[in-house]
């Protein structure tokens, strides 16, 4: 038989898929484990309300974590995600929600706000050629200031029907927030990931010089990454408005979401150096982060000890990657 026609074996493709999504799958596995533990030990057991409450909290951080992913994948970092999140919350609380038409318009305005914030970040980083970390520190202050302009003190309102709908469940116990997150990912992340924009974004994060030499449109892609990050923060801001019915410009909140989004992103297997990882992983990272806190509560751990435990767990999990160091034979490989 002279059959040498097939140049490449088609079996074993799954090997590469596994390798590429290793971080995401790991995060998924850990989350399922933890969530099972949580609902298993929750006094109310595994029922729809428990799941929905957990989902609502988790989705909030997940949205901000996805926003962070867009920027981290380009090997940048966005320290203003929390501020954009809070800003959009405050803007939403100032909008008109009486009629269906007004509500739709309000939603669009809030989304545009986030988009604009992200776009501003992108413009300064790309055309100003400033480092993302310092840029977003400064723009974060600006966005937070604007949030204060909208909402000096907590208040405001939102379309209650819409809010209830988004924070409740569908028949069968599936939380609406989870469905919403799924839709957001389907509509925004998946097309982005499989598009030319997504490819360039990942290429830039992996090797910007090589991307340039390959003739890729780097500026456009980076801009899209930052703008979409802002958009996701806006969706998060909308959602927290649905959950709390108010707008509040809390600096603690903004900082917490920013820093937790970085933790979520790392837990979800996204590399802080760029070019690797997926927003899906970041979502599971966020859910893991939230569930740890809940787990500690459910296991009746003295609430006093919970923040310490949470911190140690976070620390240990980011150190897990250091196990690869044991196998390094050439010390030059230690240097990144």
């Amino acid at each position, binding site marked *: 038989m002279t059959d040498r026609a097939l140049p490449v074996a088609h079996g074993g493709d799954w090997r590469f898929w596994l390798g590429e999504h290793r971080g995401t799958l790991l995060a998924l596995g850990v989350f399922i484990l933890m969530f099972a533990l949580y609902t298993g030990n929750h006094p109310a057991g595994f029922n729809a309300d428990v799941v929905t409450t957990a989902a609502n909290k988790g989705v909030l951080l997940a949205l901000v974590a996805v926003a962070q992913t867009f920027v981290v994948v380009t090997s940048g970092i966005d320290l203003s995600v929390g501020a954009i999140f809070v800003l959009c919350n405050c803007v939403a609380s100032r909008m008109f929600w009486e009629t269906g038409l007004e509500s739709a318009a309000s939603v669009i305005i809030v989304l545009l706000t986030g988009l604009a914030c992200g776009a501003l970040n992108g413009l300064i980083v790309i055309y100003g050629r400033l480092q993302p970390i310092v840029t977003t520190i400064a723009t974060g202050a600006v966005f937070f200031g604007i949030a204060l302009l909208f909402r000096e003190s907590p208040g405001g309102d939102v379309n209650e029907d819409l809010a209830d709908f988004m924070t409740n469940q569908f028949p069968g116990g599936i939380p609406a927030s989870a469905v919403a997150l799924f839709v957001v990912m389907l509509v925004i992340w998946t097309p982005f990931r*499989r*598009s030319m924009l997504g490819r360039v974004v990942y290429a830039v994060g*992996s090797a910007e010089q090589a991307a340039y030499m390959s003739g890729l449109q780097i500026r456009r892609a980076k801009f899209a990454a930052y703008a979409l990050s802002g958009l996701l923060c806006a969706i998060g801001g909308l959602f927290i408005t649905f959950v709390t019915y108010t707008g509040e410009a809390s600096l603690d909140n903004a900082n917490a979401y920013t820093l937790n989004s970085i933790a979520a992103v790392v837990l979800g297997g996204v590399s802080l150096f760029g070019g690797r990882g997926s927003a899906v992983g970041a979502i599971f990272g966020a859910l893991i982060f939230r569930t740890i806190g809940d787990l500690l509560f459910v296991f009746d751990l003295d609430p006093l000890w919970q923040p310490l435990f949470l911190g140690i767990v976070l620390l240990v999990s980011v150190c897990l990657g250091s196990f690869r160091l044991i196998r390094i034979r050439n010390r030059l490989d230690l240097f990144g």
Partner: protein
Amino acid sequence: MDGSATGPLFRMEGVSKRYGGVNALTGADLAVEAGRIHGVLGENGAGKSTLMKIMTGVVRPDEGRMTLDGRAVTFASPAAANAAGIVCIFQELSLVPDLSVADNICISNPPRRFGLIDGRTQRRIAEEALARAGGEDIHPLAPIKDLPLSRRQLVEIAKALVRNPRILILDEATSALTAADVRKVFSVLKRLRQEGLALLYISHRMAEIAELADECTVFRNGRNVGTFKSGTKTDTEIVELMIGREYSHAFPPKPAPKASTETPALEVRNLSWNNRLKDISLTARAGEIVGLGGLDGQGQRELLLALFGVLRSTTGEVLIDGKKCNLSGPSDAKQGHVGMALIPEDRKTEGLMLPMSVRDNLSMASLGRLSKGGLVDRAAENRAIDEMIALLQIKTDGTSVAVGTLSGGNQQKIVIAKWLMTKPKVILLNDPTRGIDVGTKAEIYQLLRKLADQGAAILFYSTDYDELVGCCDRVLVLYDGAVGRVLSGAEITERALVSSALNLGGGHAEDGTPALAGAGAAR
């Protein structure tokens, strides 16, 4: 299609480019014809890579013009040059490590369906391109970072072919390929020539250029110093064109070998590591220059790193002056009683901190010696630095300028000077004259012999056979991580080096063994 009937496909006239105060290209001319392979030769720094960058839109020329099909063109970016049909195959620079082979091959213009990238079609295109480029065994979904260098270059070639180029530029594209791969690539290139492509082959390997090229152009100091049909000049004539003067080896005389009973400065016993170094034993005496030979990738670089303490989990013994040493890193290795120095492989990333000043770079390894109680003695430092600059004749505009502004040869001198300031007893050099101009090379050869005469033991890996022949008292030819053969004194000839390098593999030069390194003096 015969391009010569209607004029060259691509022409460059009077092109100049300056970087700071340095003229990279001055009034450069080049004519490329369709259906021909045009070889471009020149030393490093002659302007070949600047020429290529201008042709592919990476940089803009300061003066001059380019015409394609008789019409004037300018390229604002690599994308524009690609659109015009000019594609360049780099050594490694344009592959994205975290993306797959297929993603990289179709990176800038993937097939699309409903606006999104069509993975299945892309994979098919990639497989076809890989087959065309001779890389059928490369899986299209493999991430680039998992591929060895030789495979990456094949992917680079496949990527270029997918763009349907009219002019294909290969810039040192075969340096990491095995001999078998080079054969495949050559047959691909010859086929492309028949199909009417114009190929520009930039290389330093005259043997390859002789086989491939229809005509050659030699660059020197940023100028085109000669264009001639292949085969009309001898190798020596070509080298003289490249270096601009009469060509003669500039090696200092070697001392007569003397039998010595003193303990060797460096002794290695049964050194093994990670299946890349296998049971290596060697000695180097004070005053000796010992060379490491053999084909690329047989463990020479790893041996030097192992001696310097950079590799973990090595087995075997290393003795300095007869005393066992357990080195855990470069900071141990440079200590007085060990006294080792390593001139690393890549001066720009491993040997120097380019933005830092000449002074800071020079004293970096000997800060311990130049200080008391952790405080740096500025006066002693300046004295030592001035001494070194004079000794090695380093051309620099004062000691406060950034090292990145110096020429390649002077940069390498600074790396060497940095280590000489530690007064080493054993000096390890990892291909120290790669990419250095001929004048500086000669200075380095003289320096090495002088250091040996002053009592240092030198272990010297080079990919240039002429250097090994000219400089070394003994050469250890490595194969597959072990010492295959030792040549001493008059035994060291190019023929002996080449044949022992090949024969150690049992004569299997055609499959899986890396190709010969630079034949000929120019590198």
